[in-house]
C-alpha cells in the first residue's frame, strides 16, 4: 500500500534532493559531467552581490508577508466562523484567489499594477488634481517600475492567497468547545478578553504550525510573480528572490552547481527558521496540553 508513495518519495524527492545537495559542491552545466570544486561555490555566493540581494529580498518578504498573511487569515476566520446569511459566499470568495493558476494570477496583477493605466492607479488618481497625482496630491506608487514599489506589489499579491490558511483556521475555530465561550459570557469577558484568554491560547498550536508552513511557502512562492510580473526587476534585481535566482542560474546560465549551492543555503536557512519557531512552540505548548 505504501509502495507507490515510498517509491515516489525516494525517486522524486529524496534522491533528487540529495543529488542537488551533492551538486552544490560541483561545477555542472548539464552538458559535461560535474566537476568537483569543493566549497568554491559557496565562496562565490558570498561575494555574489546578486545573491546577497536575492537573499535579502526573500527574507524581507517572508518577514513582512508571513505575519500579514497569517494575521489576515486569522481575522477572516474569526469574522466568518459563525453562520449567518451569505457567510458561505464570503468564505468561498476568500478561498477563490488561491484556486487560480499562478500565472493567470500574475497576469491579472500585471494589468492591475500598470502605473499608467492599471485600475489601481487609475482609482488612486481619480480624484486627483492633475492626471498624475492622487487625491492626496502625491504621485501614486509606480509599482512595477520602482524597486520598493515593486516589492510592495509582490507583497500585496501574496495577501490575496491566504485562502488555505483561512480554511484551516476556520475549521479549527469551529472545533473549539462552545462551552468555554458560554462560560466567558457568564463571566463578562469582553470581545478582546475572549480573544486573548480563550481563542488565542486554544488556537495557538495550529497558528504556530501554520507559521512554519507559511514561512516555508513564502520563501518559495515568489517564483511565479517574480518571473511573470516583475521579471526580477525593476532594474538591479529588486524583485529577484532566491527561487528566481536559482532558476536563472540553473536553466538560463547553465551554472547548476552554483544554483544548487544557493538552494542548499536557502534550505538550511528555512530549516533554521522553522527550528527556531518549533522551539518557541514547545515552550508555549507546555501550557496547552489539552485534557
Amino acid at each position, binding site marked *: 500500500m505504501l509502495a507507490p508513495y515510498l517509491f515516489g518519495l525516494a525517486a522524486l524527492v529524496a534522491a533528487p534532493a540529495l543529488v542537488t545537495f551533492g551538486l552544490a559542491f560541483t561545477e555542472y552545466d548539464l552538458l559535461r559531467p560535474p566537476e568537483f570544486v569543493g566549497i568554491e561555490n559557496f565562496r562565490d555566493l558570498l561575494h555574489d552581490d546578486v545573491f546577497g540581494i536575492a537573499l535579502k529580498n526573500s527574507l524581507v518578504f517572508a518577514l513582512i508577508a508571513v505575519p500579514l498573511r497569517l494575521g489576515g487569515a486569522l481575522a477572516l476566520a474569526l469574522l466568518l466562523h459563525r453562520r449567518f446569511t451569505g457567510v458561505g459566499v464570503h468564505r468561498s470568495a476568500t478561498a477563490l484567489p488561491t484556486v487560480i493558476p499562478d500565472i493567470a494570477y500574475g497576469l491579472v496583477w500585471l494589468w492591475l499594477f500598470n502605473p499608467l493605466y492599471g485600475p489601481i492607479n487609475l482609482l488612486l488618481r481619480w480624484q486627483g488634481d492633475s492626471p498624475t497625482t492622487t487625491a492626496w496630491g502625491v504621485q501614486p506608487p509606480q509599482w512595477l517600475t520602482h524597486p520598493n514599489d515593486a516589492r510592495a506589489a509582490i507583497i500585496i499579491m501574496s495577501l490575496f492567497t491566504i485562502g488555505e490558511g483561512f480554511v484551516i483556521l476556520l475549521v479549527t475555530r469551529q472545533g473549539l*468547545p462552545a*462551552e*468555554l465561550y*458560554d*462560560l*466567558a*459570557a*457568564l*463571566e*463578562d*469577558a469582553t470581545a478582546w*478578553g475572549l480573544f486573548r*484568554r*480563550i481563542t488565542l*491560547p*486554544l488556537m495557538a498550536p495550529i497558528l504556530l504550525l501554520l507559521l512554519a508552513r507559511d514561512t516555508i511557502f513564502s520563501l518559495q512562492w515568489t517564483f511565479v510573480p517574480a518571473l511573470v510580473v516583475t521579471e526580477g526587476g525593476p532594474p538591479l534585481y529588486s524583485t529577484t528572490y532566491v527561487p528566481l535566482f536559482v532558476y536563472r542560474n540553473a536553466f538560463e546560465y547553465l551554472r547548476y552547481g552554483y544554483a544548487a549551492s544557493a538552494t542548499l543555503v536557502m534550505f538550511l536557512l528555512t530549516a533554521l527558521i522553522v527550528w527556531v519557531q518549533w522551539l518557541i512552540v514547545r515552550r508555549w505548548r507546555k*501550557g*496547552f*496540553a*489539552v*485534557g
Partner: protein
Amino acid sequence: MARPVSRLALEGVRKRFGETTALDGVDLEARDGELLVVVGPSGCGKSTLLRCVAGLEAVDAGTIRIGERDVTAVRPAERNVSMVFQSYALFPHLTVRENIAFGLVVREEPKTVVRERVAEASKLVGVEELLERRPYELSGGERQRVALGRALVRRPDAFLLDEPLSNLDAGTRVQMRTELRRLHREIGSTMVHVTHDQVEALTLGDRIAVLDAGRVRQVGTPDEVYSEPADLFVARFLGTPAMNVLASEAARPFLEIPAGTLVGIRPEHVRLAGEGVPARVDLVEVAGSDAYVFLDSDLVARVASDARPSEGAEVRVAFDRKGLHLFHEASGRRVPGP
C-alpha cells in the same frame, strides 16, 4: 461563607429553535435557598431552560426573574448566576487555581480578594491539594470539583448545574451526589440542577420539576412526585422499574376501573403471596436485597430477595390497594379514586 439567596422564577417562557419548540410556556419557581432538580428525558428542553435562565439563550416570550429583578433582557454576565457545565468547561491551558480564579480575574478584582476567595472555594470543594495542576492531570470527579469551585468563587445569586454528574462513572457519581447535597447545605444558595437521571433527581432535590416536551408536568417534593404523580408521564418516568400500567381489559381480573381510564401500580405494591390472580414467572432479576419478578402477564413485581419465586413458578398476584393510581386514558392526567 456569606449566604446570598435569591429566588428564581420563569413565567410563561417560550423558546423555539427554527421549527422546533423547545420550551412551551414554562412556569417554574425555585424558592429561596432550595435545590430544585429539573428532570426529564433527552430533548425535553431542560438544558434550554437552564440556558435561558443563564441568559445564554434569549427567550421568545415570557419573563425570567432572579430575586425581584426582571432579567429577561439582561446580559448573562449581569445576572449574577454561575453555571456548571456537563463537560466542566475547564480551560486546558490554565492551572486549577487559574481556572477557579477566572471569573474574578476577568472582573479585575484585587489580587488579595482573588487569593482569599480561591482558597475558600477550593477548600469547600476539596481541591486545595490540586491548585497547581492542570485539567488534563485530573480525574473526572476532581475536574467536576474544580468546575464547582469556579462557580462558587464569585458568590452568585444562584447556581445552575447542567447535568454535571452525567459524565462521571457510576461510583464517582454517587459520591459527588452526596458532595453536592453537602455543599448546598453549607452555602445555602438557590440551585437549579438539571438531569435526565430520575434516581439522581429523587435523591438530590428539595423539590423536583418533571419536564417533558417543553412543558412542566409536575413540581413537588420527591415524595409528592413519586407517590402522587400528576400524570402518566411522571408516573412512568420516576421509579425503577417503571410503574405497571394496565388498561381496563387487563385490569379486570384485579379490579374494575371505569372505561377510558388506566390503572397504574408500582412494582413494590404488587403482592405475590396469598390470594390472587394466577400468573407464571418469566424472569427474575436479583439486585442486591431486592428482586424484580417479571410475570407473563407483563407485570413487574418487586419482592425481597430472599422471598423471591423461581423462574417458571406459578404464583398468585394481588394489588395493594394503597398503591393504586388511576389515570385518564386520553389525557394521561391523574383521576381521583379508586
